[in-house]
């Protein structure tokens, strides 16, 4: 039995490797994606185009403007002279925020009266708006101090960020990409492998041979697993050596968890394929399953933000648990016991799904 499975695996890998286009598709795009997405996925707010509406000629107002303009978070983009202009600038997205300093500002500061400043923010990008809020408050506090305003706040909040003291977005995104990209590729390749065989007619030839359905499934899952594993490690290497994400935990542990994870990915691809008739349908199936999986995993937006129902369904999602593991091993030196515990749902889902694929293929043969 082992010999037959091995023969099938060798044949599959040869087939993948021989086609120049497939070789290209397996290696290059992951590399490109890693580089692009790691730089794209930034939660930092930088260079926010700022409109400056200064109705006050005084030195204090000028000082405030200087501070805002000088901050890396903002990029002065327009001088505003009227409410209509402010409205136009915001509507047309020429600026994402407008700093409005009223006439009395400098006078109020000098007279030690409460002074007010207004910030109009484009709410179309809500996350940015929230972060702009934070930056602006900080800038204002610094400005107040400098302006000699008697404002010692009653409370100062001192923040310490665990594991990622400088809040590098990439440290967060890259371990996530390891999990997401590899599973998508594993699912896609294994689903297409099986669908292709059936569509081209070579599947029947396989069925007539001594190969049992179980052996065929294993053989068909392996190319997906290999491709996914390679992809995962491309991202790992990029993370470690290009982006210098620290690896606090154990690499062998990470790799062994990845192997388990790939088995699950390959199995899911097989199930999708066994329920469809053509390669196009298989691809569609993978898309339909993959999208919710990525979203519910907490890759793009935190699990904590999801409605309760979504969060519960998400517990079936292997990506979700793998994200915890990759982020944990990279940034947290996660204890092996905890890693294994987190890996249990992955293994369970993989086993059940493989069983499902086996039943589906055998049923299809009747």
């Amino acid at each position: 039995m082992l010999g037959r499975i091995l023969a099938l695996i060798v044949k599959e890998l040869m087939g993948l490797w021989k086609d120049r286009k497939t070789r290209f598709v397996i290696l290059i795009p992951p590399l490109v994606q890693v580089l692009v997405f790691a730089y794209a996925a930034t939660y930092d707010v930088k260079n926010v185009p700022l409109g400056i509406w200064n109705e006050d000629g005084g030195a204090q107002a000028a000082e405030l403007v200087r501070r805002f303009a000088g901050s890396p978070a903002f990029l002065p983009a327009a001088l505003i002279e009227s409410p209509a202009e402010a409205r136009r600038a915001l509507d047309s997205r020429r600026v994402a925020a407008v700093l409005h300093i009223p006439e009395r500002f400098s006078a109020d500061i000098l007279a030690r009266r409460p002074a007010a400043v207004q910030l109009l923010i484009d709410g179309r990008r809500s996350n940015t708006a929230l972060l702009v809020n934070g930056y602006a408050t900080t800038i204002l506090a610094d400005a107040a101090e400098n302006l000699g305003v008697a404002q010692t706040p009653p409370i100062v909040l001192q923040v310490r960020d665990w594991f990622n003291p400088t809040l590098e977005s990439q440290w967060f995104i890259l371990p996530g990409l390891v999990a997401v990209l590899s599973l998508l590729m594993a699912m896609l390749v294994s689903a297409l492998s099986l669908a292709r065989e059936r569509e081209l007619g070579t599947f029947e030839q396989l069925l007539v041979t001594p190969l049992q359905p179980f052996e065929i499934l294993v053989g068909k899952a392996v190319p997906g697993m290999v491709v996914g594993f390679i992809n995962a490690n491309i991202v790992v290497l990029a993370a470690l050596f290009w982006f210098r994400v620290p690896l606090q935990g154990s690499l062998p542990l990470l790799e062994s968890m990845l192997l388990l994870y790939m088995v699950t990915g390959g199995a899911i691809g097989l199930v999708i394929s066994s329920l469809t008739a053509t390669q196009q349908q298989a691809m569609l199936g993978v898309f339909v399953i993959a999208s919710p999986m990525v979203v519910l995993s907490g890759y793009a937006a935190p699990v904590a933000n999801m409605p309760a129902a979504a969060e519960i369904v998400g517990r079936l999602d292997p990506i979700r648990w793998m994200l915890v593991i990759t982020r944990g091993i990279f940034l947290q030196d996660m204890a092996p016991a905890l890693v294994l515990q987190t890996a249990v749902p992955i293994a369970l889902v993989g086993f059940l799904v493989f069983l499902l694929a086996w039943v589906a293929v055998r049923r299809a043969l009747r």
Partner: protein
Amino acid sequence: MIAWLRMRGLVGKEIRQILRDPSAILIAFLLPVVLLVVNGFGISLDAGHMRVAVVAAAPEEVVRGLIQSLAASPYLDPRRMPDVRTAEAALADGSVLGILVLREDFIQRLQNSHRWPAQAQLIAKGTDPNSARILEGYVGGALTTWAEDRGTERRTLLPGGISLQFRYWFNPALRSADAIVPGVIALVMTMTGTLLTALVVAREWERGTMESMLASPATMVEIVTAKLGTYFVLGMASMAMSILLSILLFDLPFRGGLLPLTAAGALFLLFTLGLGLFISTLARNQFVAAQIAFITTMLPCMMLSGMLFDIASMPHWLQIVTFAVPARYLVSILQTLALAGNVWAVLLPNLLCLAMAAVVAIGATLAVTRRRLD
């Protein structure tokens, strides 16, 4: 160059193929529903009920007041914990997102304005930088409110000081859904558009029917136009459904006009369909076409369209790259139409870029197909 009788024949064949293989119908109508529901409900940048552990060495009544104040914020979910060690364990295993620590001298320092500021410590989990920053903002705000309330009670507010007033344009409640759902619609259209056509041509090559079509008098322009036309109709129906669904399910506002919406949708659809055909023609076999389609649509659309991550904050070279991602233009148009209305200063340049993208994609397809003939 185009014989209408032949076109009718070609289009008829495409229609019959679609009706017989449910894939296309599923892509056009089932996939969008799935994507919308999942992404719309699943992706939320609205942090709500962020669990914060509170460890405070202070009189009981003060701590209770603080916790109430924190709980009053719709964004925070405070949990009292006896000591820092317990709290740190909770932070490590993820049951809380942050720890607010108030040491013994906090209350004394707070009550004596000469000893201001009193220091409070927030320990956040830096593995998720976005949430960490948001948590910082909310906790800071809640603390300040609490201090001010106490101040009002005891009249220890100082004169002077600068206050910062915020006003949000278009999305006063800062619902992330209103900003994200347009992005999801763009994602849905990207995927459906490309998927509808990505395998079509490759499949014909694989099955050998392409050769017989090439042997017929139909020109390449006719063949490509017939495919594009048929799938265009399907795609527009799909888009209409997606928008209606968004309005129904997510209360998406729609303050813009139907004309710019249709124009944007049509142009974008032409682009994605063209892209799909291009991939399909180049790949010539479905296996490769599928992988390329997958890679070039889903993740780039999510990451580079401005849907989740702010383009202006990306490195400069990457911002230039996003100009080549048409989803970016669509997201901008949709966000504006939904929340702002017909702001032509935004709509026109973006529509123009979409038009260019469509021309490039279809032109490329025709160019590649013509070459394949010899």
